[in-house]
C-alpha cells in the first residue's frame, strides 16, 4: 500500500472524506494523517511563518513540518481544502511549495466542493501512486523494440507505432466509440509503419478510455495520462534531463505538470469551466465559420487588445465574441482575443497551483493552434516549446513506457 499523507481542512464536513479514501484505495493507495502532538502545532506554525486563524490550517502546517523533518514517513502528499476559502487557498499553495522545497515527495493539491466524487480524484491519485511505484519505469528515456501507444482522449483518439526509439507510424481521429476509434487509428498507424497487429511486442494505453482499451488489446501498460503524457512530452521535446513544465490544454480538462529529469513531481489537472479549454476555441472557430486548424494562423495576425473578451464563461465568452463581430471588429483580432482569453484563464485558474519551471513545453491538440501558443507565451513571459508531433504525447508516452516491459 502506498501511503498518501493527507493535509486537509474541511473534508470531513463536506462529505468528501470517504470519496478521497475510496479514490486512494482503488489505485492501491491509503490516506494517512501524519501524527502531531498538541505542542508541536505552535512551533510548526512559527517555523513555517504563516499564522492562519483557523486551527485546522495550523494543524495542516504542523503535519507538513512533520513530513519535511522525516519524523513521519509517507510516499506522497495530497493537499485539499474547501473551494472558495481564501485563507485555506493561501495555506494550500504555500504548503505545496514548502513540501516541494523540503522533500522529494510528489504532491497534488485540490480544492473541493461537497459534490466532489472519487472519480474526479482517480487520475490524480493514480498518478501519485504511479510516481512512487514505477520510479524505474518512469526514468526510461529510450524506446526499444516494436511497440504501440494508444491515447483515448475526450476529443480525439491517437495511435503511434515506435521502433527502436523512432516514430514509424501515427494516426488520429475524433473520438466516438472507444474501441472502434482506437482500432481504426491503430490500423492506420500500423499500415503506415508496414507492420501488423501481431508483430507488436507491447501496447501501452492511456487517456479516459485506457482501461477499456487495455483489456481489449491486452496492453502491457495501462496508465493515467499525467505521467504518460509527461514522458511523451520530454521525449518529443528532447528534454529528458533537467526541469520543465508541460502544459496540455485539452478538450475537456487542462493539465500542467512540472518534471525533474522527465519524472513528474507536481501536477494540476482541472478545468471547472469550458471557457478555459480547447472546446472554447472550437466554438470560436465555428462562430467564425472557419476550421479550428485555421484559427491559430488567423489569431497570430490579430491583436487581442482590439476586441473585448472579458468573460470567464464559454457561453458569455461567445456572446462577447458576437458583440465584437457585430461592432465590425476584424476576425483576426477576435480570434486572437479568444486565444488570449483561454491562455489567461489557464494561467489564472491552474498555473497558480504549481511553480512554473522553464522551459514550458506545450503539447496536445491545442498546441497546434499557433495563436494560442503565442498568447500563452505572452501571458507567461516566454514562448513555449512545441515539439513536432505534439498532439501525440500520450501515444508516444505509451509506446515508450510499454517497451519497458519487454525482456
Amino acid at each position, binding site marked *: 500500500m502506498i501511503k498518501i499523507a493527507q493535509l486537509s*481542512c*474541511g473534508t470531513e464536513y*463536506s462529505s468528501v472524506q470517504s470519496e478521497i479514501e475510496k479514490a486512494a484505495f482503488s489505485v492501491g493507495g491509503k490516506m494517512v494523517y501524519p501524527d502531531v502532538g498538541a505542542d508541536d502545532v505552535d512551533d510548526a506554525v512559527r517555523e513555517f511563518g504563516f499564522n492562519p486563524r483557523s486551527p485546522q490550517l495550523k494543524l495542516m502546517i504542523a503535519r507538513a513540518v512533520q513530513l519535511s523533518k522525516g519524523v513521519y514517513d509517507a510516499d506522497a502528499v495530497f493537499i485539499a481544502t474547501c473551494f472558495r476559502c481564501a*485563507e485555506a487557498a493561501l495555506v494550500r499553495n504555500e504548503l505545496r511549495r514548502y513540501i516541494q522545497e523540503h522533500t522529494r515527495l510528489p504532491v497534488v493539491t485540490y480544492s473541493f466542493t461537497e459534490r466532489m466524487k472519487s472519480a474526479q480524484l482517480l487520475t490524480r491519485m493514480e498518478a501519485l501512486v504511479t510516481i512512487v511505484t514505477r520510479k524505474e519505469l518512469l526514468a526510461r528515456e529510450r524506446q526499444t523494440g516494436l511497440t504501440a501507444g494508444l491515447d483515448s482522449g475526450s476529443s480525439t483518439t491517437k495511435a503511434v507505432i515506435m521502433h527502436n526509439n523512432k516514430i514509424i507510424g501515427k494516426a488520429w481521429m475524433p473520438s466516438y466509440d472507444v474501441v472502434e476509434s482506437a482500432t481504426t487509428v491503430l490500423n492506420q498507424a500500423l499500415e503506415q509503419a508496414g507492420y501488423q497487429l501481431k508483430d507488436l511486442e507491447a501496447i501501452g494505453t492511456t487517456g479516459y478510455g485506457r482501461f477499456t482499451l487495455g483489456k481489449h488489446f491486452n496492453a502491457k501498460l495501462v496508465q493515467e495520462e499525467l505521467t504518460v503524457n509527461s514522458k511523451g512530452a520530454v521525449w518529443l521535446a528532447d528534454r529528458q534531463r533537467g526541469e520543465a513544465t508541460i502544459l496540455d490544454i485539452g478538450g475537456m480538462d487542462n493539465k500542467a505538470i512540472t518534471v525533474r529529469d522527465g519524472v513528474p513531481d507536481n501536477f494540476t489537472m482541472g478545468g471547472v469551466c469550458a471557457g478555459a479549454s480547447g472546446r472554447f476555441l472550437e466554438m470560436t472557430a465555428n462562430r467564425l465559420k472557419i476550421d479550428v486548424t485555421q484559427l491559430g494562423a488567423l489569431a497570430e495576425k490579430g491583436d487581442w487588445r482590439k476586441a473585448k473578451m472579458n468573460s470567464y464563461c464559454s457561453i458569455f465568452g461567445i456572446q462577447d465574441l458576437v458583440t465584437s463581430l457585430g461592432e465590425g471588429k476584424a476576425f483576426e483580432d477576435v480570434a486572437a482575443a479568444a486565444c488570449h482569453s483561454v491562455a489567461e484563464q489557464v494561467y489564472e485558474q491552474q498555473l497558480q497551483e504549481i511553480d512554473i519551471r522553464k522551459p514550458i513545453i506545450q503539447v496536445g491538440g491545442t498546441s497546434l493552434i499557433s495563436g494560442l501558443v503565442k498568447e500563452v507565451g505572452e501571458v507567461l513571459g516566454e514562448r513555449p516549446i512545441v515539439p513536432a508531433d505534439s498532439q501525440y504525447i500520450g501515444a508516444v508516452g505509451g509506446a515508450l513506457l510499454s517497451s519497458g516491459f519487454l525482456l
Partner: protein
Amino acid sequence: MKKIFIDPPNSMILFDIVERLGHEPLSTMAALQERVDNLEIDMPPMNVTLDDVIKGLKYAGIEVPSGIRGRLAVWGPQIDAADAAIVMTEAPYSFGCVGCERSNEMVKYLLRRRGIPILWVEYPRDKEAAMRMLEETKEFLEGLE
C-alpha cells in the same frame, strides 16, 4: 434539566462540567452519532452526508465553502434547540470540527441572535482562574432553573 449548547462544541471539559452540574450538554458528538449510526445509508459517512451540507444552506449561502455549511448543518439545529449556552473564549486549542475559524465565528453570532442566555468564560490558565470559571458556571446554570 436544561439543554446547554457548549462552545467549542466538542469540548470534553465543558461537556463534563455541564453534566456534573445536572444539565444536558448539546455536543457535536451526539449530533454526529446519529449520522454515524444511520444504517439506512449504504456507506456510513465520515461525520456528515451530502444532504447535510446542502441543508447547511439554511445558515449560509452557496458562495460559502462547503466545510462551513457542513459544520453549520450539525450545530445550527442544536443552537435552535438550546435553552442556554456556555462559550469558552481564548482556548489555545480547537481542531477537527472546530478547526474552521469562520464557522466558529458564525456559531457565536447565531447564539447571540437567538437571544438565549450565554455565559462567556475565559479559558482558565491556572487553578484560580479555573475556580472562578467553575463558580461562574455553577451560578449561571442555577440561575436558569
